[in-house]
């Protein structure tokens, strides 16, 4: 879990929580991806906690998590939830106010 360091400068400190289920493939992928984002964009100002719902199933309800993996942006507000393996990079950045709103996906 990275922490916000004083040397990060004037940037705001992000508090993120990633809810996963053990060794699930998507959970693993999500973990990798969020770690990359923190490293590339939020160096020194990212507090990331990985919560394994297999170990702590009770953590889901209070955070209003309905599926795993779910990335919860706790700070800075607003609180946002992003479900999935975070492979949609543009969307992740947008949710973290680090990028523009991506075009609507056609499904």
């Amino acid at each position, binding site marked *: 879990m990275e922490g916000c360091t004083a040397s990060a400068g004037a940037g705001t400190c992000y508090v993120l929580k990633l809810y*996963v*289920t*053990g*060794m*699930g*493939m*998507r*959970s*693993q992928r999500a973990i990798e991806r969020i770690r990359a984002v923190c490293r590339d964009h939020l160096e020194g100002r990212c507090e990331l906690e990985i919560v394994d*719902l*297999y170990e702590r*199933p*009770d953590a*889901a*309800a209070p955070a209003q*998590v*309905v*599926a*795993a*993996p*779910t990335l919860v942006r706790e700070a800075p507000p*607003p609180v*946002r*939830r*992003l*479900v*999935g*393996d975070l*492979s949609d990079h543009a969307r992740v950045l947008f949710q973290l106010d680090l990028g523009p709103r991506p075009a609507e996906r056609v*499904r």
Partner: protein
Amino acid sequence: MNAQHPGPDAIAAMQAELEELRETLRAIRSGEVDAIVVDGSRIYTLETAERPYRVFLEAMQEGAVTTGPEGTILYCNMRFANMLGAPAARLLGCRLRDLVLEADAERVDRLLSAGDATSGEVRLRTPGEPLVAQLSVSRLEVDGLVASCIVVTDLSEAKRVEQALREAGEVLEQRVAERTRELSRSEQRFRSLVTATTAIIWSTDAGGGFATPQWSWQAYTGHAWEKHRGWGWAEALHPEDRDATLASWRDSLVRRAVYEASARIWHGATRGWRHCNIRAVPVLDADGAVREWVGSCEDVDDARRAEEALRESEHRLKQDDRRKDEFIATLAHELRNPLAPIRSAAKILEVAGAERPQTRWAHEVIGRQVAQMARLLDDLLDVSRITQDKLELKRERVQLADVVRSAIETSMPLIREQGCELAVELPGEPLALDADPTRLSQILLNLLNNAAKYNHKGGRIAVSARRAGAEVEVVVADSGIGITPEAMPRIFDMFAQVEDARKRARGGLGIGLALVRRLAQMHGGTVTARSDGAERGSEFVLRLPLAAERAPAEPAAARDGQGRRETYRIVVADDNQDAAESLAMLLGLEGHEVRTVYDGEQAVDEVERFAPHIVLLDIGMPQLDGYQAAARIRARDGGLRPTLIALTGWGQEQDKQRARQAGFDHHLTKPVDLDALLGALKCAAAPVPCTGD
């Protein structure tokens, strides 16, 4: 509906939330999730998310089994199937308890029904040998149903290793047992070896006393613990050895030096003191302090007594030897006494009956035989003197030529008797030696006599002398029976003689050459022999150092034949009547007036009465011996001081000293040589006393 419309922020928030929900639904529907949370805390995992777990289960070394409530197998991995030697499909639905040996089935039941995290060992049925496995059980509850997740670990390898270890352990134990046996055997051997030579093994504390009962000490001395505890051991030491031993022990304690001592220790069994050698070493702690002393006592009594006995017998032998030498000396000396009167009588015969041929023959025979006997006795005496180291040399400056001539003269009769030819070659230059003329002559005489004795009739004898550097070399060569190589090494040995029938007839004691060698050595010279073998003659080479050069013209004390022919009044005192009378007769023939007495008292009285010029006193007389008589005579000296001449068988320097001290002027050894006597008489009357001895 509220009259107030939601503000733009609220609308944005609602929009965001909506979007989020839509996104979430989309993600779930498109299977982008691993699991869904139901009822707040139940996690339902999608099938595909399980795969890593599956792989894990299949890949691991252990067998994995999931069983339902009755112990039926719901799932098992490949490893487990391999262990049982059956395909996994066949195992599904079986009861786990049926897959183990009958004896272990109950254990399986217990494990499955016991609490979480239990384990036990069972034997799985296989087509081959039963497989020993460890079952580790974890309980699982799903919707009220109890299931077990079991990890099955193959113990066969471990068992094999365990077995191998056990076997190796057994082999090791065997080897250790064997080694221990060997060790105890050698220890026994060592012990018996030690006890064979060592009587006692003991140990004391650092203070030097026995701190614990010493069984070995007790066994030897018979002293119980009460007696030998502490320093009580000193009681077992011989009183004469105690102080020294204690002092030495105390010294060793202080210096922490190896202790070695010898003392007599009481031996209880034989009730006696026995000699022992004691030795002890300190045993040190890690910090260098003495922890105890460890020592041994070696019983050397037998060896010591044997040694003492040996020394004693050696001493006795030496004493016997000495006594023998003294006996021989005394014997020779005593045997000489009768010779003196015999010689005198012979001399008288010569003078008195010169015309009658029988008388002449008689006198010559007696003279020769007496001379021979005297020579034998002299040799004997010399031998005893050599062995007693009492031989003395009277050195003076002599000419080699004189000595050689004198020896030849004496040897001539024998040479002529043997019918040998003699050739003499002497150097023209005078060669002076610092030697005892009598002894030198004796050497040459001996060699000449041998040359004649060990020769054939008509054999040749050659005597030659020459200067060789700082030495003079005299060679006596003969053409006689020679010396064999076997005999050569021993010819100069005392009592060695040539084994020869002819030789035996020639007489002799076999001491000649030993004397010759000794005398030569005493003069700083050597004598060597050479021979080409039997019947090839022999050669004896005498080498002597030349006397240092000196300014010439110092004539030796001359005994010139010229002298006044005086007549003296002479008293002869000797308890041997024959000796006294024959001497008196001789002197009478010379024209002197002689009185004879037979003991010291008479001598003193006669001197007073007769007032002689000269008194001849035998030393060994009864009543008053010669020394005492001389002392008395000197004490009573009136005016006419008579010349006192001592006659004695002892010619040693100390005898002469004693004679001089007693008041004698001269000293003659018996048998008295007439010329010497006459020479002494001449000296007696000389105005300046001369050293005629």
